[in-house]
């Protein structure tokens, strides 16, 4: 995997958040403030544009540029959270021009750690962590078991999607949905939903290469 992988991952995300824009807005309207799809679309459109203008940066650097772009265009909580996540992931790769499966696990682990640190959310708080953490843990375990990357990523994306659906019965403890208390129960978390799209986008980007 190399810089192309990162660029196509970001394009996959942009296409899927744009396609799911209204769905994300609807989920956010139920327990938040109805702007998640709009913000994520604006952010990843800007990321694709920024990476398109880039001239041959290594993959880690592209992740850092993507993260900075999200911080500076998204606003809300998703901007700083995904922005910090991608920057933390990018720093893992330094200036190397290619990376392997084990390093991809490290990138995603750093991203998860950064989200949990900045957002102070834990598993079960009904946030993006409920999709991201199972995805990272699944990928880590499957790669450690020697499973081929495409298959492991498919399992990771499925784990994110399970985690996303698993937010439905939860009561939110972080973010705007927490204001609702018990009334947040029964709704799927928009942040976990876009996170599942982001992991699925990675799976698509990687499998289209092989």
């Amino acid at each position: 995997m190399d810089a192309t992988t990162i660029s196509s991952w970001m394009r996959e995300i942009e296409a899927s958040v744009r396609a799911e824009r209204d769905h994300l807005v609807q989920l956010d309207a139920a327990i938040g403030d109805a702007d998640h799809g709009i913000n994520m679309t604006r952010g990843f459109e800007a990321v694709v544009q920024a990476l398109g203008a880039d001239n041959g940066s290594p993959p880690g650097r592209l992740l850092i540029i993507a993260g900075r772009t999200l911080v500076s265009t998204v606003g809300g909580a998703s901007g700083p959270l995904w922005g910090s996540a991608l920057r933390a992931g990018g720093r893992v790769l330094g200036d190397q021009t290619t990376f392997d499966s084990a390093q991809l696990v490290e990138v995603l682990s750093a991203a998860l750690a950064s989200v949990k640190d900045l957002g102070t959310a834990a598993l079960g708080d009904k946030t993006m962590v409920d999709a991201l953490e199972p995805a990272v843990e699944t990928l880590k375990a499957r790669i450690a078991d020697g499973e081929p990357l495409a298959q492991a990523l498919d399992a990771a994306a499925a784990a994110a999607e399970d985690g996303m659906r698993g937010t439905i019965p939860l009561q939110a403890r972080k973010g705007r949905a927490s204001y609702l208390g018990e009334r947040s129960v029964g709704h799927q978390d928009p942040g976990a939903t876009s996170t599942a799209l982001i992991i699925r986008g990675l799976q698509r980007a990687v499998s289209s290469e092989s």
Partner: protein
Amino acid sequence: MAVETHLMRKFLNDPAAVVKESLAGLAAAHSDLLRYDVANQIIVRKDAPKKGKVALISGGGSGHEPMHGGFVGVGMLDAACPGEVFTSPVPGQMLAATKAVDGGAGVIHIVKNYTGDVLNFKLAAEDAADEGIKVTSVVIDDDVAVQDSLYTAGRRGVGATVLAEKIAGAAAEAGGDLAKVTDIVKRVNERSRSFGVALSSCVPPASGKVIFELPEGQIELGVGIHGEPGRRRAPLGSASEVVDVMVEAVLSDLKPKQGTKVLAFVNGMGGTPLLELYLVYGEVDKKLRKAGVEPVRNLVGSYITSLEMAGASLTLLELDEELISLWDARVHTAALRWGI
């Protein structure tokens, strides 16, 4: 909860440009007080930076006008960072605002307690510190509708924000240093409590859809300023009954001693006329006096709005002589002006 398409009639050219076009209009209307930095999307006091004066900035999603751009001027904010509608601004805006107003005495970030605002201001304060600017941050969290516990993001910042900006702005104008003015912001926050009621939802321009549907005859108690649902729904009662709920919610949390002097702030959410807001204030005034609390100052009007949401919030601030004198001090902004 379903989001229903709602027939929208708004003054728009391009829904995506609504914030920028509105800010340009604000600047055209009040060029004597402020300027609009288009590139950074910030509103800056015209004579900033003021050498030696502590500067105050705030920011948040748009859709709450006149907050915050309407509070930039003499005796209040030095800059405002407006985000997209109901979306926190980004750290770049806050850093640009901080640099634009820093007169060497330090800059205070007044942050409403929403996860997005808090995270973005946190990143901006770190960036400003890296550039050698003294920054303090105070998070405003006065909304008693949200239980403040480990299981929530904590109370939201609502009405106390306006009061803190006015009162601390006066303290900064009077020459207070960074520690002193920061303490004033904190004191106003600690002594304020708010509670809001929505009679209707609102329609963000980008989606063109109502955020929530209120069934016939129902009101939302403890509503936030982004159309986020509140504590519970209840049947719409008389104004007196609804105000009873608001006053009770605020007083039971503030627990003022008998004879306490307060500032009573009746805020319109954007779609409720002043005719009704004064009616509400009349009820508030009466009920406070009955409860042994003395409303010696007040503010009535739409200052923290949620687009066209119908509804009102009540904020009570326990006053002392210093806060009263700072409240009475000169203010000259687009939305609040007296003593000029």
